């Protein structure tokens, strides 16, 4: 498999690796994928009081595309509103990282994780109300 330079860059130096304290009320975590399916992503997002994504962290296992897409996602997430995050699609990662069709599931996993995190944040908001 031949990878684009952006994939190799993110694969060799993935951004924002780590975890956030999910017991905090403004932190959500989305866990997607299964090891025996080849990809696992844990995505942590911290929101500020205005509902902007303040920071994010990832733990990721999988092929180079899922590592690169998850890393790229942490840069994309920064300062986005919940509505903006919900609009993030796998297309963005496919285009940016030049992901072949047979590997689109890697980009979908990242989209799913972002959507799950948004859903979790909305649930938090409801519980506050």
């Amino acid at each position, binding site marked *: 498999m031949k990878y684009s330079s952006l994939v190799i860059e993110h694969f060799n130096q993935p951004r924002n690796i780590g975890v956030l304290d999910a017991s905090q009320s403004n932190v959500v975590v989305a866990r997607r994928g299964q090891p025996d399916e080849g990809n696992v992503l844990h995505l942590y997002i911290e929101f500020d009081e205005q509902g902007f994504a303040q920071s994010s962290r990832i733990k990721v*296992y999988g092929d180079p595309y899922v590592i690169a897409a998850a890393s790229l996602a942490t840069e994309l997430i920064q300062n986005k509103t919940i509505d903006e995050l919900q609009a993030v699609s796998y297309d963005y990662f496919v285009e940016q990282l030049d992901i072949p069709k*047979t590997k689109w599931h890697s980009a979908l996993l990242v989209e799913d994780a972002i959507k799950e995190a948004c859903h979790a944040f909305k649930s938090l908001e409801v519980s506050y109300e």
Partner: protein
Amino acid sequence: MMNNKPIYLDYMATTPVDPRVVDVMMRYLSTDGEFGNPASVTHAYGWNASTAVEKARAQVAALVHAEPKEIIWTSGATESDNLAIIGAARFYHRKGRHIITCKTEHKAVLDACKYLEGQGFEVTYLTPQSNGLIDLTDLEKAIRPDTILVSLMHVNNEIGVIQDIKAMGEITRRHGIVFHVDAAQSAGKIPIDLQELQVDLMSFSAHKLYGPKGMGALYVRRKPRVRLEPLIHGGGHETGLRSGTLATHQIVGMGEAFAIANQQFESDKKHIQQCRDKLWQGLCDIPGITINGDVNTRYQGNLNLTIEGIEGDSLILAFQKLALSTASACTSASIEPSYVLRALGISQHLAHSTIRLSVGRFTTLEEIDLAVAIMQKEIKRLRAIAP
């Protein structure tokens, strides 16, 4: 190979041609050399080429303790396997139409057997034990009154395990069944004595032993005589078994490669073992790394490793400075894990996280140190980012 190319750890895929072999081959190509057709019997060009071909035949035969006239030139081990299996099946089909092989054989054997299934033959595919070795009682049990051929490899190309072809030959001979062995990965690397082994047909490859690609040979036993139907017709070369003008330069290359392997058998073996052991010493303390295939009964140049916790494609990208093989075959739509590992009972998930490292005559201890450092660093890095 200490330049900006990856460190070559894929000697079971192919080997570089030994410079001494190149020197000999160059003497049989152009006007200043012996370029004649070995089949030309009317002039010195042909006679000299023919002499060189026969010398090479003796060199190949000497490595495996065979008679020179028992060696038939082919285009490689794939052709040798096809000629042995299809040729024997076609010749002996009146005696029976049952063949025995193993699920972990090379595709050249499996696909030749599959072809014969389409021609009305029945094939039993033995399942090896979890260490890759065939249980001899399974072989004996699979034999039927109509079994005409058993085809089993000597050293497995992926996991490097060495099958007990001596004991297998005793079984097949007792039942009067033709025994074919694919020795592409073992010739010149572990001892083969065809005076002692009861093997009837044996396939060889030049490029796995520092000879040229596109060149191989098939051993066809003369006492007791084994008969084959040829696959290629047109001139009756090689006692009618393999027609076609002989490729003198390729043949002398194979002969020289086999002669060198014979001369320096012990020093090659010692060096390769030293490199492989050093490689394993550097990796064995990393948690979650397992060797596939029997640890002791294996070719000294092979390591087949499953590295848990790192996905297969990421392993390959992380190890880009190393030239190695994965256990997966990419097709256009999906990645198929190795059928060899699957036959050992290894899960699809783990089979995908498996690599084959193979060292050879030109591997250096310095390269091994570098490879170990790269692998240790990348495994640690990728595991640290995983959940």
